């Protein structure tokens, strides 16, 4: 079989089960695909074919992902392998330990294939903030793939990886998934261990799957979810069998459409595609109603206070003392700090560190950080209320627009920040959400819709997303590269 790279993990596992292919065949196929198309997409910061083949020869006897190659976002630690957050300040950094998700993947037989590109330290929505090179959208390489997990989304969309891990702090999995036409899931905060995820904003970050379809999303989530004693914020409740949640129907599911998410200035084609998806689900027996999440308009402001505050502290450790890069010939300690950080961080990282430092500063803390925490609680209450009222999921567009042109927003941080207006509230509340393909623009750009669930109800949003997928074939289309 020469098109193994185009198959989903579930399809490949079936073939592996029948012994009609070997794990090495899959790795060969995916690697040669990457070799032929990654020059255009630039989704990988590095691919380790030899290492992957080596691992494929020493797989555990069984495992949910036995023989499946997975791309890992460059902010998830893999022992002994470069892990740089696409930043110069971590150039050459090889962690001495594996992230818990990497341990879990390995024990389930998955093969780490390569490091997916990203916005530096996950700061961005276009992948243009990578310190190395921007990743491009496989559907139109003059456009951005979204971000910050742009590399992860792009390599899955371009069939350069069977599945990928990303991280989502304000939409960093779901927005690029939507823009690249793949499935991206941000689990409930605490569902997946963050141990080994290089922190951007600790109270918002969550690792999640980027996959070709919903079944693969359920499969990968099941492999990485669960309590971890190394992460005090992970939650100790059992992990359900997500694959068995995929019943194929939405009959009787209560889906809410928040009026605040259909705003002026939203792309007309996106608006139409999402409304069509709503109609389809209604036609299949879902009970659709309008709901209100009244504090939505404050989400972006709250997010850019809290996320930058935490980031300014999380990034303090990159000081040239222990790991990563140190400036040449420092004159004294202050000089070492200033030049190491001045030279090592990109413009967006500096912008966020300065912003975060400012909002935590004495005299400003109450007006910014504390106020933002209070509004964050109100945003969470919004979600609590609608789910308590019996809603199963909330349906929204994932991104207000399809993929934009490279460079179009890079000089205007505010317009860039607005790329995430539909995804940010979910992180602030901590609830899970999934983005699934729901159409294409006339010019052939993917459109995604977002299904948001109640805490730890990943099963429900996977079920609704899967049912939708059963009646559509958006997810089966591939970009021409």
């Amino acid at each position: 079989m020469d098109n193994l790279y185009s198959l989903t993990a579930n399809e490949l596992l079936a073939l592996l089960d029948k012994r009609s292919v070997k794990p090495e065949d899959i790795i060969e196929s995916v690697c040669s695909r990457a070799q032929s198309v990654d020059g255009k997409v630039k989704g990988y910061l590095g691919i380790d074919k030899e290492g992957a083949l080596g691992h494929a020869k020493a797989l555990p006897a069984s495992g949910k992902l036995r023989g499946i190659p997975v791309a890992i976002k460059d902010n998830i630690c893999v022992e002994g392998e470069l892990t740089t957050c696409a930043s110069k300040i971590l150039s050459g950094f090889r962690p001495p330990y594996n992230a818990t998700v990497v341990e879990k993947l390995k024990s389930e037989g998955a093969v780490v294939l390569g490091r997916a590109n990203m916005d530096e330290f996950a700061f961005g929505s276009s992948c243009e903030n990578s310190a190395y090179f921007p990743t491009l959208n496989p559907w139109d390489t003059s456009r951005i793939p979204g971000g910050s997990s742009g590399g992860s989304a792009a390599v899955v969309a371009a069939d350069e990886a069977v599945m990928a891990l990303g991280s989502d702090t304000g939409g960093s999995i779901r927005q690029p998934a939507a823009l690249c036409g793949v499935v991206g899931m941000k689990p409930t905060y605490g569902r997946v261990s963050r141990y080994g995820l290089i922190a951007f904003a600790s109270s918002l970050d969550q690792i999640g799957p980027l996959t070709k379809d919903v079944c693969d999303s359920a499969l990968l989530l099941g492999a990485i979810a669960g309590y971890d004693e190394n992460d005090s914020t992970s939650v100790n409740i059992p992990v359900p069998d997500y694959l068995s949640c995929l019943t194929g129907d939405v009959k009787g599911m209560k889906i809410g459409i928040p009026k605040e998410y259909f705003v002026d200035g939203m792309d007309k084609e996106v608006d139409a595609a999402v409304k069509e998806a709503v109609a389809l689900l209604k036609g299949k027996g879902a009970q659709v109603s309008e709901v209100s999440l009244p504090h939505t308009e404050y989400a972006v402001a709250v997010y850019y206070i809290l996320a930058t505050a935490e980031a300014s502290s999380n990034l303090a450790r990159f000081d040239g003392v222990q790991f990563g890069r140190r400036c040449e010939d420092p004159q004294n300690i202050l000089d070492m700090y200033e030049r190491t950080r001045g030279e090592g961080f990109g413009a967006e990282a500096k912008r966020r560190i300065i912003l975060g430092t400012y909002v935590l500063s004495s005299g400003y803390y109450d007006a910014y950080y504390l106020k933002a925490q209070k509004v964050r609680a109100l945003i969470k209450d919004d979600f609590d209320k609608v789910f308590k009222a019996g809603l199963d999921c909330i349906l929204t567009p994932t991104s207000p627009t399809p993929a934009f042109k490279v460079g179009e927003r890079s000089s205007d941080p505010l317009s860039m920040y607005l790329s995430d207006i539909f995804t940010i509230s979910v992180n602030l509340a901590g609830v899970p959400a999934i983005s699934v393909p729901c159409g294409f623009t006339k010019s052939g750009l993917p459109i995604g819709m977002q299904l948001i669930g109640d805490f730890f109800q990943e099963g429900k949003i996977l079920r609704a997303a899967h049912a939708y997928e059963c009646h559509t074939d958006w997810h089966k289309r591939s970009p021409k590269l």
Partner: protein
Amino acid sequence: MDYEPVIGLEVHVQVKTASKMFCGCTTEFGGSPNSHTCPVCLGFPGVLPVLNKKALFSAVRTALAVGCKISAEVKFHRKNYFYPDLPKGYQISQYDEPLSEDGKVDIDAGGRVKTIRVKRVHMEEDAGKLIHEEGENSSLVDFNRCGMPLLEIVSEPDINSPEEAYRYLTKLKLLLKYLDVSDCDMEKGSLRCDANISIRKKGDTGLGTKAEVKNMNSFKGVKSALEYEIERQVKCAETGERIVMETRLWDPDRCVTISMRSKEEAHDYRYFPEPDLVPFALDPSVVESERKSLPELPEAKKARFIGSLGLPEYDAEVLTQEKANADYFEACLKYYDKPKVIANWLMGDISAYMNSKNMAIEELKMGPAALCGLLKEIDSGKISGKMAKDIVLRMCETGKDASAIISESGLSQISDASQLEKFADEAIAENVKTVEDFMKGKDSALMFLVGQVMKKTKGKANPAMVNEVLRKRLAAKK
């Protein structure tokens, strides 16, 4: 003009736990640089802290022992600042909602009890250590200490003299050692103390501008630094020089405090809640069980030694000054029922021996059972108290039982009347003049004869018996 110093102390103690506060690394002292480290305490990218429950429990015990109210919720904050010994660029500490508040420590202030209020007891992690090699153009960092659990105990400014500060520290150390929370060894750095100090005119109630004094590495150093600082501030006040709010370092070699930085250029630590550690409710039953398992604290022990054992206050005070000494004393009570006799020996010969060897009671080779064995030998008359003084030293040196030492060196007291009669007769024969005196009614002459018998027996004779035998033999002569 008379001035009065106003002092508040911030004490940091390293909590005795097997592992560090947020990772599994050992807390053992020493070890080659950076050998007691892991990605978590080195602050590697991606790592997360997990709270050591033992450290939390020790903190709760300490807070309870100084009478603090325990907070219902445990919440950590990040204290952000750049320094090479702080690998994450922030210290996990507690801020506006500390573990506990509003406690007190009573001290003896010149014969009266004075209460020093404790503002708060909270938990935080320690930093690493910078090593500056002489003549080198760079510094080294040792992270072995990094992430060790610390307690910060903050007093209210209730201390009004260097002596009171010294007593407060001594009392705190005593408590912490009773609780087995910390070694409190200032030289090893397991107890550190910073002082906030200002002066005011006697009778005033307001607070003057304070200086923070750091870098004191012994209790005596704290006292000397405060003495110097008071003198400096009084001199400033008298000459009209402005006292500025600043941090000053104690230089123990020159015995002066030196200005380090003024508070105007002080850090803004940008505290915010630590997102990696979710605040959690402290189970009241855990607090209650810690409260119940608190050991008897020094004051209660002292009162009991006086009240139910009948010890003089002085003895009770001395014996409770070290928990190990009190424990030794109490262990003795199991074997021997005269508390005051035990106390005399512990505070006398044994204490002198330990002082001469500069050792603690834990290192003493003679155990409580052995000491009591010796005391029983005295009571039985087998040895004299004077002989026991020699024997106890040999027991301390060798760890042997009293009976073993007595038999191997033939030290046992001569209590055999017929043997003593022989020596008595000799003494009577050799001291005709003294015997005559005695016969004439000079009773004190007998003491001379007793001394002669003791000499002949090389001190081994039972003096009471000698006395009795001599009287009998002399009476027979009449």
